[in-house]
């Protein structure tokens, strides 16, 4: 029993890190500009395909392809911001929700036409490591490490670089920031781009150990919502912890009841937290 518990814990934690940076992409945008990016899921899926084609088509090693994917994600995000979001950034919330959802529909529609919905796999076998009774695949371990690295990178970026400080300024009070000369439109675009970058990177990581289709992103988007509420908006560290909590839930709950009950728990928890503590268990950046 103890062995099983440890095994589940480790599995859950490793996966939780990846969930964490997936969620970070969503919560960063949400926290900074109060926009819920409903295309988050499809961007994760695009990240998956990006790494897949770079590896299978061009022979670039997945972890290097990840860097390229990150750059592509950033650029794509900035484009999406200026096309779909900028005009409605100050409009009622329904507008931004629908605007980002329309981008989602476009990505899914074109993606299905190009990639079809046949599942893909990245044939990456790096072997596994044994920790006592637990066998851990290297791909998952590396993914977790990279996730932590990205989270730390984001945290440092926000805290110590100039663009990072601009982002925090705009989050606090957009008008005041504009008055002191912060180019808010560009800052918002950068933030959106960072959010999509995170989504794409998390997708690329997930693709190294799970099969996927263009529709796979939806599950991770829903998880990102849950994590966002758990961890607090605009708070990258909170998202990471939220991701770990979710990963733990997914790893441990099945030990006590049929695995198919896990989503019920996740979503009930989600609604409860929304009702009780919408700013998350760790508090958001206000």
């Amino acid at each position, binding site marked *: *029993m103890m*062995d*099983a518990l440890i*095994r*589940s814990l480790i*599995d859950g934690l490793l*996966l939780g890190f990846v969930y964490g940076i997936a969620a970070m992409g969503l919560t960063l945008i949400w926290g900074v500009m109060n926009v819920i990016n409903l295309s988050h899921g499809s961007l994760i899926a695009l990240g998956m395909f990006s790494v897949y084609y770079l590896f299978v088509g061009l022979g670039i090693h997945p972890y290097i392809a990840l860097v390229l994917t990150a750059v592509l994600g950033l650029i794509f995000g900035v484009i999406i911001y200026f096309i779909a979001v900028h005009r409605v950034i100050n409009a009622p919330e329904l507008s931004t929700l629908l605007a980002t959802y329309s981008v989602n529909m476009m990505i899914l529609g074109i993606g*299905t036409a190009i990639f*079809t*919905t*046949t*599942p893909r796999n990245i044939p990456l076998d790096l072997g*596994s490591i044994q920790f006592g009774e637990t*066998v851990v*695949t290297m791909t998952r371990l590396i993914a977790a490490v990279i996730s932590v690295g990205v989270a730390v990178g984001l945290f440092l970026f926000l805290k110590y670089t100039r663009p990072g400080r601009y982002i925090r300024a705009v989050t606090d009070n957009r008008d005041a920031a504009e008055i002191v000369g912060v180019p808010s439109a560009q800052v918002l675009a950068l933030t959106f781009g960072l959010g999509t970058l995170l989504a794409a990177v998390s997708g690329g990581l997930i693709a190294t150990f*799970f*099969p*996927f*289709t263009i529709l*796979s992103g939806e599950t991770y988007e829903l998880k990102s919502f849950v994590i966002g509420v758990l961890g607090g908006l605009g708070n990258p560290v909170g998202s990471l912890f939220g991701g770990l909590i979710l990963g733990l839930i*997914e*790893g441990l709950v*099945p*030990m006590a009841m*049929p*695995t*198919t009950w896990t989503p019920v728990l996740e979503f009930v928890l989600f609604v409860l937290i929304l009702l009780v503590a919408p700013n998350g268990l760790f508090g958001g950046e206000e």
Partner: protein
Amino acid sequence: MRRKLYILIGILLVAGMVLAACGKATPTSAPAPKASESSQNNAPAKTSAPSAKEITVTIGFTQSKTGKYNEESTRQSDGLDLWIKQINDQGGIKLSDGTVVKFKAVSYDDESSGDKVQQLYTRLITKDKADFLISPYSSGLTSSAAIISEQYGKIMLATGAASDSIFKKGYERVYQLYTPASHYLTGAVDLLQSLDPNVKKVAFIYENSKFSTAVVKAAKEYAEKKGYDVVMFEGYDKGTTDFGSFINKIQDSGAEAVMGGGHFQDGSTLARQIYEKKLPIKYLALLVAPPDPSFADLGDAALGVVGPSQWEASANYSPESAKAAGLTWFGPTSADFVKAYKAAYNEDPDYHSAGGYVAGLVLQKAIMDAGSVDPAKVKAALDKMDILTFFGHIKFNTTDAHGLQIGHEMIYIQWQKKDGKLVKEVVWPKEGATAAPLYPLKH
């Protein structure tokens, strides 16, 4: 100014679509639905002698050109297309009154999705005026399609659909070609018992689909009757990609043998993850995935995995065995089928391909027996059918579970290494085996 431009573009887009939608009312201008065909497989409509009456029967079906059933469904429709091509090339079926019957296929992509299947079959029936229907691939989709077929009183040949429950719903015109789900894993239990009578603990993990649920329910009963201790019996939702927690649970339960799975996608992922996590089990039997040649892509993860199959190329059904069993033989031999399939598609057929082909074959026999394409007469012919084909024995239940397949049986394959390459061998039943089973599973 730019705003007006965007609005204009939007209106033009919408107007264009409305006009196109109006165009849909006249059948000629609507884009032709993609008739099933592969690149090497154009069914040429041979113009027969003007004196004989020629009718064209429309066969309607959906295939999963995209989505998770893509692998199996493509093989199934390739098999069916091969039959259509062959029958048309032969000049069609000649009925006793001189009428020549040719076939035309109309199909759509169901995207492996349940909500499209019903709309598409309704369309096949009401718009494309299909005379006979073939099911989609998978019990789940077939279950939805069968309702529509039965509502409109059409005959449907269900291939790629094993679930018994479809045939307990009171349908009268749906006919099953596969061995029912309840027989899928019973042989796997027998095989395990013959290999190692000391194994007592088995785990069943299965996809929450109509098909696999039916399989494991029957298998669990059977295993318990044979004295096994079912230490784990749990389902996973369709589309699951992460089996980590399941594998942990299996390890925790102490199971020595694992059976179950679902379809190709989840089955192969499960096999791979079991291998990656080095789960210490001795026997692994999965549904649908192992008999598919693409299962070999898993490499060493595929070694030793057992799978039930509806048909293998080495199956020894022949006119002689038919005579010995007192049955009528119909259709080509396995060897002929494999040769024709390889020539058309440049790859080996698996049991899904054979299932698709035999659907057409059975329809052909029924029309020939009925001497007409009248649905009532064809139904009567199907009810009476009792034949042996390259696929096996075909006979339908006509009483409490109308349409259920009661003649056909499963065989079991296992992946083994021959000269360093992965090959599929038939390991059970002993009479049809091509190699001795590999046991236990190696890691």
